[in-house]
């Protein structure tokens, strides 16, 4: 299981954010420092688990 997993918006049409270690909900907001860390994790070659 990856550290990060996408979750979808209410309509189920697009990703709304990522969940970190099944605990922290992180929005796809470039000003959010958790999201900035997530992008660094992706840049390091990691893969995000797909949403349910």
């Amino acid at each position: 299981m990856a550290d990060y997993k996408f979750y979808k918006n209410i309509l189920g049409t697009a990703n709304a954010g990522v969940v970190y270690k099944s605990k922290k909900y992180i929005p796809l907001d470039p000003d959010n420092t958790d999201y900035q860390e997530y992008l660094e994790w992706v840049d390091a070659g990691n893969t995000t688990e797909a949403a349910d």
Partner: protein
Amino acid sequence: MGITINGSSAAGNIDLGTNGTITDLAVGGLPDGVVDAGTLTAAMAKPSFRNLIINGEFNVAQRSTAAVTTSSGSNEGYQTVDRWQMDMDGTTAAFTQQQVDLTAATDPDGFYKAFKIDCTTADTSVAAGDWASLVQNVEGLDWAQLNYGRSDAKTITVSFWVKSTKTGTYSFSIRNSAADRYYVAEYTVSSSDTWEKKTITIAGDTSGTWLITNGIGARLGWSLIIGSTDSASAGSWAAGNKFGSTNQVNFFDNTSNNFLITGVQLEVGSAATEFEHKPYGQVLAECQRYYEAIHMNAGTAMWYSWAHGTPQKMEYHYKVTKRAVPSSQLEGNASWTGTTPLSFHTTNVAGFHHANTGYYLSDASGDLCYSFSAEL
């Protein structure tokens, strides 16, 4: 012609002089009993909201007031007092960080909380990449008034109270968001385990890019240990990423060492004014722009969902609009009962949603149960 408003006695007179001054005011805090240009200048020298540091008294600690053991890779970042974080890398030292009470007559007057760092595992050999700092990142929207990166960048003065059992040279640093501009300043702890007030004046940086957005305007750091890789000579602005002096003492060389700090103020100008004490509620609201804690009593529940058609929804409106869309998470032993909803937030509202199952938040102990973080 002067106008005299006479009272029944000479002491009650108010005289409007021909030069526009008001005289004979012997009471009311006026040093010379005269309201004139000098009086107004003195008042204007201490404008309200002049401190760019948030929670400089360390009064607000939404996350925890208990000691948190910290080492490189464990419990770094924001753990206790609001807006202050411990960052480190390389060093094998460990310590506890905690908000502590100030109750002694020898403590700085007017302050009743401080931040304490207590060394619990020593690192007696400073490697090149070792460093640890107490950090506050100031938002660009607040830092913008200093005109950094322009020819008219303003001089600032940082003042604070410090008490450490480890005497010697310490360092303070300012860096921009991109960490490609820095200034390192030194201060000296002269007497062991004794409160000392330090004042550092720094001319503004006329170069580099300094954000004036909701991102990081400036990274402020109080160094405790730093190796050769990240240290530099003090006293001038330069390009690069340095955040401590080459003369910095190794605070972590002994487990008997502890370091306390309070009354941190950063203001425009070349002199330190007295610390601006603000109401607790005001500072709490300032902190909540970056972090908002939800507490619950033991054995209770809240945030019950409601059905709008089939979906189960719950909304929470923050006390303060956030700097950015926050992350959120359960804290401690709190848990969702029923099912775990998805979280959809904006900068001022948190929404929780599940397609068909109801839920509520419960907590077995009376403590922090949920948090929203938009920290820098």
